[in-house]
């Protein structure tokens, strides 16, 4: 087996890695059953019609290092695809923030009072959590989706949906989502590179119902598959659905809050 591994599988894997398969050209259309599953969870997790403000706490664990804690306030308006994130803790991060308006994502650096244009899937504060976790999902616009069978995650029977990026402007061009058959909510997402090496796995541990069939995750574990032992635990508190002033989704608001 070792010989087989060394002589056939490793060279094939290497060739695949070096050649970098054209992931963006893989499937060219959606599998209708998979698209239905995706639309199903997006209809539950995208909260059009209400403004959402929440307080996230991220605890990043690394082997041999003390835990790192980040806390930030988010303001989210899915109807116009906007959100604002403002760091509150620790002091070294305080005042930094993100503003997303449609496809544009800006990172605000208070020390230089600069807005830096970022990839919309930026990693927050060098953790394993990406900014797109906190906004509206638009999976079918960015990915072709296909069914990849079923699987059991923990005690739940799940449908597995594979996502292949249509455009390279996404963090993870290949993803596998595990969606609970019972309520249509995702419980696990595996994220792969272009060459299909697994990079990160997200476990959606718990959700809170917002009413009208809408949900938001309250506990999420992001595991870094490349750096063994590195993971980020995200919790979500102080969830409110009161109207948020328009001004909150502007650069001026981030500047004002950083002072």
């Amino acid at each position, binding site marked *: 087996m070792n010989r087989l591994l060394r002589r056939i599988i490793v060279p094939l894997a290497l060739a695949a890695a*070096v050649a*970098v398969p054209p992931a963006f050209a893989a499937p060219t259309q959606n599998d209708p059953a998979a698209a239905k599953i995706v639309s199903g969870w997006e209809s539950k997790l995208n909260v059009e019609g209400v403004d959402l403000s929440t307080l996230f706490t991220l605890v990043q664990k690394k082997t041999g290092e003390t835990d790192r804690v980040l806390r930030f306030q988010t303001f989210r308006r899915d109807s116009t695809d906007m959100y604002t994130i403002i760091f509150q803790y620790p002091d070294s991060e305080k005042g930094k923030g993100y503003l997303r308006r449609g496809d544009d994502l800006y990172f605000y650096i208070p020390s230089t009072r600069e807005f830096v*244009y970022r990839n919309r899937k930026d990693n927050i504060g060098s953790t394993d959590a990406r900014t797109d976790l906190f906004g509206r999902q638009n999976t079918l616009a960015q990915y072709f989706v296909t069914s990849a069978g079923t699987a059991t995650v923990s005690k739940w029977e799940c449908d597995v949906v594979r996502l292949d990026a249509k*455009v*390279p402007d996404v963090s993870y*061009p290949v993803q596998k989502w595990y969606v609970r058959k019972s309520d249509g909510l995702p419980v696990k997402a595996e994220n792969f*590179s272009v*060459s299909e090496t697994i*990079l990160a796995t997200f476990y959606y541990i718990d959700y809170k119902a917002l009413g009208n069939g809408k949900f938001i995750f309250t506990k999420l574990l992001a595991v870094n598959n*490349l750096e063994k032992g590195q993971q980020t635990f995200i919790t979500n508190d102080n969830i409110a659905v009161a109207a948020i002033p328009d001004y909150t989704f502007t650069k001026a608001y981030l500047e004002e809050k950083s002072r």
Partner: protein
Amino acid sequence: MGFYLSIALKNVFRQKKRSFTLGINYAVVTFILVLLFAFSQGASQNITTNLVRSSAGHITISGSYTVAGRVYQGVRRYPDIAAEASAVFGKGVTVIPRYVVRSSLYYNGISKRLEFTGVDTHSDSGIQGQLRFLSGSWDAFLSADNAVVLPKDVATYFGFGLEDEVVIATRTRFGAFNTGTLKIKGIYETDNFFIQSLVLCRFPFLQTLDLAEADTASSLYLYFDDPKQLAQKRDALASALSGKGFEATKPADASAAVNAVSSASPSYEMDASGRDRIRLTLSTIDEAVGLVRTVTAAVNAIGALIALIMLFIIAISIFINLRMTINERLREIGTMRTIGVGAGGITSLFVFENVFLTLLFSLIGVAAALVVVGIFGFLVRLPFGGAVALFLDNGHLVLVPRISDIAVIVAVITGFSALFSFFPARYGGRIRPVEALTRVF
């Protein structure tokens, strides 16, 4: 005049202790200044040479391009640019593409962010001569598309051995993550500061990893058989490239040149011009090392300031010393005046004495400095590691004393000595003969 000169030269050795005490100051100042100028000249030359051997050309072309409003770092259509350079300069130019990716390397639970440099092994073999392989070889590097050669420090950090396979993961220029597997084919050390931290890969590997188009490079290095008049050459090439649809410019200042030479993907910017375009920055090596020259000029200025302070102290010594000498030699002055030597003659005599003293000890200082230059240049080998490697060539500290620098240093110190000995000498010349012969101290 010849008479005064010969008397002045003899007088230098009349009071050996006093001459030595004053002269040693001239020697020390000259010694320091010669070494300082040799160091800054050597540093400037060495940095330029090492940069040209590693990560810059005589002209370096870097840039960005816009596709659908999104700006990407790198040089698009680089084969067209290389062809245009050949058309403008003929066979006297060699064009080398490089691809740079900053990325994390993962191995056995350890990771580190590194700069990976992709070399086109068909055209870019100059870097090979800079590497001293501790294990593996350049030929092994050529044997595999996913080969990598690493500096010793990186290999030690991860505990790598030859043929180990490591995962590289990078966020590509478009934003999507990509990964690849590298195979270690060599571990090296080098005394070239600019190569010390380079992880060398094959150009196509990094280009593919970054999902870049086949005609994209991070930068292009142009090497000329005759690397003179680089600014004019750059202007000629920029003009030719502009005619081919590129937006070719030169860096605004030295800092922009350094940024242009060290640019790498990824970067996420938007272009509001509404059209696809390729912008190029053409930097000459002189501009890229302009900051270094500014720093070395500042070092020279500080050295010169210290020398000026020392010279000021020496000036006071000259003044006191000469006044004492004049007082001790009043009878001699009186005798010379009575036999017809004018006030100007006496003044010249004392000034010449000091000028000879300065010249003699300055030359001793120069000789001592040249000996030190020789010792560091040929005998003493310093360890390669760290920032000190900036100033080393093959382990030897690069000191380049220039005749023009030495001549200026000696001339300035001599002139200074002449100036500050003139006033007490003039005082000596103005003493009337009768006073000189009758005053007793």
